[in-house]
């Protein structure tokens, strides 16, 4: 029993599965069940494989817990201990509730991420097939560098991970269902509860104040749904409940938000009009009247509520960001040190005004600011790395010079008609220079695309990418300065050898069979050879150092 080494978090006896009595074990990484009297598990699920758990409703005769796996299968446990069944089940449920989310995120994310990458990138998929499926390297090795690479892209976002916002419709998701006997049933998930807390901190506070000591969790939420606060205007129950205070607090919050005013002067409707008409002037028929019907009042309450709700949802999503920007604005307002808003308003106003009058397409220098390429040696940039041993290479300046030299010579070239070539020599020179001639050999060569059939071509391409990938792994090990890298470089070298023998050589044989010139693979071979050379050089040096 491998499970012995694991820590067992909970043991529940007398649990039936498929009409068989047994014992349920909850361990750190998996849940397992073994029939009575046997010392092995017939059911064992990693938490990571479990999608969700379901429980039988209260009041049902059978007290059950069902686990649904990602594969769609499900396992049902029946708690059969008459006296403590409910308690047992709830204990198991609660523990699972804590454990599952931890595993869920980790496992799923990685798998999903890998899946997504493979689906999105056909080249990567091909590479995966070439290298992993044919077992040149193992899947872990393949992903090790990939995921890291990927995480580099997301490094920024990962460092200060963005919090997931709240759906504006989270209250709508709690759809009440009638349970058949004149009651309503609300389904609450931990997500929804979190949403409620984040959006309405007042409720969270109430929860913290009341829940363990005054009310049970269930009672709390029952009251919440019954409260006038939740329904706001649909049913006007006059009763005093614990949430009436929340409503007041919300009202206050809304008022303070309104009083604070807006930062952006462009949307401030209060100061939009330059000069309002004095009281009594104007032809507006809608004079402010206090005589509003009840219905109109409730309608405007709904509108207010929507505005407030949206503002709160928005704020909940932004709270973190705001914390930092608040500090910034605080410092700016402290050195403004007066409530006269003029001192710190202009910057925002200026920016907004500039934005408002800008026509991006009329201006020339608009568009995203690009970073200028800063080249120390532009020659090297335009020529690329050139092997140093090739004795002579000309800088662009040389080339330009020589071109201008030739141009100059041509411009002052004067045919000397007395000393022309013989006609035979001239015609032979022309043949030599026309296509197929001696001097035009290089140009006349047919390109690979014309010579080689398309499937060979695509195979070659795959070979190139696979070799490239392996070589990338190989070269990324240098400079070898950790034991891990040492190990990896050795492995990579053997991987390369394996690649050569399982992929490259069969391909070479194939093209030989088709009577194509073998120089097709020359370049790949060269690249691999270069890697070997490097490897041997490194190995001999290491040997030397060791001795």
């Amino acid at each position, binding site marked *: 029993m491998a499970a012995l080494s694991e820590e067992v978090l909970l043991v529940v006896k007398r649990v039936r599965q498929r009409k068989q009595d047994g014992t349920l074990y909850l361990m750190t990484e998996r849940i397992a069940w073994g029939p009575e009297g046997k010392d092995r598990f017939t059911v064992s699920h990693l938490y990571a494989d479990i999608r969700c758990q379901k429980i039988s409703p209260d009041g049902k005769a059978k007290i059950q817990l069902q686990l649904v796996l990602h594969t769609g299968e499900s396992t049902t446990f029946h708690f059969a201990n008459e006296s403590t069944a409910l308690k047992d089940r709830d204990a198991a449920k609660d523990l699972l509730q804590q454990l599952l989310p931890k595993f869920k995120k980790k496992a799923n994310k990685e798998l999903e991420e890998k899946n997504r990458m493979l689906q999105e990138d056909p080249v990567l998929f091909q590479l995966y097939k070439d290298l992993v499926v044919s077992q040149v390297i193992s899947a872990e090795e393949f992903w090790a560098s990939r995921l890291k690479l990927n995480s580099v892209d997301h490094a920024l976002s990962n460092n200060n991970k963005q919090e997931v916002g709240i759906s504006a419709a989270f209250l709508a998701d709690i759809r009440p269902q009638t349970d058949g006997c004149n009651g309503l049933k609300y389904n609450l998930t931990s997500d929804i509860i979190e949403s409620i807390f984040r959006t309405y901190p007042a409720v969270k506070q109430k929860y913290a104040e009341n829940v363990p000591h005054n009310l049970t969790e269930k009672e709390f939420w029952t009251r919440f749904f019954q409260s006038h606060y939740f329904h706001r205007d649909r049913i006007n129950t006059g009763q005093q409940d614990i949430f009436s205070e929340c409503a007041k607090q919300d009202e206050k919050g809304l008022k303070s938000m309104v009083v604070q*005013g*807006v930062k952006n002067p462009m949307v*401030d409707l209060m100061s939009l009009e330059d000069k309002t008409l004095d009281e009594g002037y104007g032809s507006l028929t809608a004079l402010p009247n206090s005589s509003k019907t009840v219905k109109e009042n409730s309608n405007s309450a709904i509108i207010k509520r929507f505005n407030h709700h949206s503002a709160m949802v928005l704020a909940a999503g932004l709270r973190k960001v705001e914390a930092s920007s608040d500090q910034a604005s605080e410092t700016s307002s402290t050195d403004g040190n007066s409530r*006269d808003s003029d001192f710190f308003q202009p910057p925002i106003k200026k920016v907004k005004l500039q934005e408002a*009058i800008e026509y991006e397409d009329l201006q020339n220098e608009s568009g995203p600011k690009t970073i200028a390429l800063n080249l120390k040696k532009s020659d090297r940039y335009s020529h690329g790395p050139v092997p140093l041993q090739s004795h002579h290479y000309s800088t662009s300046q040389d080339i330009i010079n020589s071109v201008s030299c030739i141009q100059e010579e041509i411009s002052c070239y004067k045919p000397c008609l007395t000393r022309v070539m013989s006609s035979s020599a001239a015609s032979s020179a022309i043949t030599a220079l026309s296509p197929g001639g001696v001097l035009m050999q290089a140009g006349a060569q047919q390109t690979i695309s014309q010579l080689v059939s398309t499937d060979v071509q695509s195979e070659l391409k795959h070979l190139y990418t696979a070799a490239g990938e392996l070589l990338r792994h190989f070269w990324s090990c240098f400079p070898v300065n950790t034991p891990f890298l040492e190990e990896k470089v050795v492995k990579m070298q053997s991987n390369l050898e394996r690649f050569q023998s399982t992929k490259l050589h069969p391909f070479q044989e194939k093209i030989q069979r088709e009577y194509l010139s073998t120089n097709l693979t020359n370049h790949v071979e060269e690249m691999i050879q270069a890697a070997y050379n490097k490897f041997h050089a490194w190995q001999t040096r290491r040997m030397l150092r060791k001795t």
Partner: protein
Amino acid sequence: MKLNIDGLLVYFPYDYIYPEQYSYMLELKRTLDAKGHGVLEMPSGTGKTISLLSLIVAYQRTYPLEVTKLIYCSRTVPEIEKVIEELRKLMEFYTKETGEKNNFLALALSSRKNLCIHPEVSSLRFGKEVDGKCHSLTASYIRAQRHSNPNQPVCRFYEEFDAVGRQVPIPSGIYNLDDLKAFGRKKGWCPYYLARYSILHANIVVYSYHYLLDPKIADLVSKELAKKSVVVFDEAHNIDNVCIDSMSVNITRRTLDRCQTNVETLQNTIQRIKETDAAKLREEYRRLVEGLKEANVARETDIYLSNPVLPDEILQEAVPGSIRTAEHFVGFLKRFLEYLKARLRIHHVVQESSPQFLKDIYEKVCIDRKPLRFCAERLRSLLRTLEIADIADFSAVTLISNFATLVSTYSKGFTIIIEPFEDKTPTIVNPVLHFSCMDPSIAIKPVFERFQSVIITSGTLSPLDIYPRILDFRPVTMASFTMTLARTCLCPLIVGRGNDQVAMSSKFETREDFAVIRNYGNLLLEMSAIVPDGIVAFFTSYVYMENIVASWYEQGILENIQRNKLIFIETQDAAETSMALEKYQEACENGRGAILLSVARGKVSEGIDFVHHFGRAVIMFGVPYVYTQSRILKARLEYLRDQFQIRENDFLTFDAMRHAAQCVGRAIRGKTDYGLMIFADKRYARADKRGKLPRWIQEHITDGSLNLTIDETVQLSKHFLRQMAQPFRREDQLGLSLLTLEQLQSEEMLQKISQIAQQLLLGRRQLVPQPLVLLAKPPHLST
């Protein structure tokens, strides 16, 4: 770039130009050359302001004697500030190109609330409070009192300005509101009075409509502006309403009560002064005998903007003897007040004209027309004599006396409606006397007569010919410009049916229909699922929106919408709405996306732009007709029919369509922006509605986008949005909707540009009534 507009060198501060901007400048140049007025409709977001500024500034520089000043009127404070910033950009370009610092002075003027730097006064929240407080610190007799009593608080900024500020003119440059304040702080001068003083010699003044159109303010502020000015009314689609509002008065029982207290205070003050300083009252009497000759002298030199409240002939006469002494005047006011109170004690609606009202008042309390006409002037004089500090307290009696002057001056163009209760609440007695102006031309007439060129421009002025008719003037140019587009970045769709084929319409008979409300909800729901970032939806009125929101809430539609986007809703409270707006923008900014439910004719629809991702779709639920049951509106419609031969329906549709166009136009700014414009009412498909949309929207409504179902709308929208999401580069636009200088100079392009402006034909212009006839016969003589 430097442009050649019909022989005028124009500096344009950008490297590229939209063809319509060029065309717009051409038309503008023609108008200025002719020294006439113009009506120009240019699509929103095509750089109207900068074109206007570039051309007029160039004109001013080239012909400094022809055009001395530009008066640029805009509607909101942010708009005013935007204009100044664009001007700054232009001037920087001038400096860069010519290498010399030009000596242009341009400034913005706004109310005290936006300009005050007095620590106590500026901390007040409402404009009226600021004005009142300022007045109590700066009024002339307060300052005079300070000589005897050094403890009398005054505003040091004003004192400083009054002492030295007028001697040296403000250095040339561009002054926005904040710049004025900074300058004021530096010098210790009051920025408000500095600005008011400086507009007299500034080259460019930017302020709001009221400073020219509201006679009460125009008289104070804009009286002395030079005749050779060009006046621009930007965003002028609502100008007629601004005119009407500034001339209309409403009197409730509360007004009368407050007026009563005012009159009592006046009486007591007079009594007190009589005992202590009778000479003062005698002095006033003498002044009044001499009459208003002083004002007359000023007007004859033709420098002053005439005040419509104060007709010319009044100036020839002295204040009538019956109200010349202070006591008599107060007694007169009392009688007038009692009469008004009696008139408000009614049980049925009364509607009458000004002459009828005057006849009645003569019969009942023997008040003549003549003293009534002097009422406002007489009160002003009295308040000055009595050294009343807080003018704001006397707003009620000022209102009443203004009403008296107006009603006795204008026999035409106004109507009096007395309603005992509101239509909605017939049981609650709340009598109101509406004295409403029906003729916008009364307020704007002095402007047209006085200034050599008045330009009325906006993104939505269609149909163009209606403005000259209702404002009663004769333009030399009327043109509507289209938007040249490299890609059709606006997509107007008319949704007429739900998926169940039930017609969608906000017309009165069906607006409460369950199916219509549900279909509207479904439309919004579907759009919320496919449109990225922000959606703005407009309803026809607050009440309608509240009802619809409530029933969407009950049907669970809002919950479903919330799954896609956050919902924010405009309320009647401006502060609350501002907050909702800011949150809405925040939600669009951070990628959540949001929906703003708003109201046509509301503050949001008039003042806020929803550019780029702040408004990828605008949905107009229903046709925003004005509430037609109001008696004031009915009277106005009748007047329009009788005076200008404009049929009621034509005007109502025109009014509804300009507001609809205004709402949907908020979403487009510039050619890189894009947005859906969804008209959710089957009535939009009719030719009479569609034909009243601005040309630049109309020409993109194809037969395929009429009377769609929700599903079809979603399909078209998806297609449109996908297309628009493709990268859009400058190269795509160049040569089509964006021009370089070289492209602009090609013959072929000039040919094309000439087609952008659609001139109104001369034949249609003759529909415009001849203003000269009215000039020869001032309305008040006809009684």
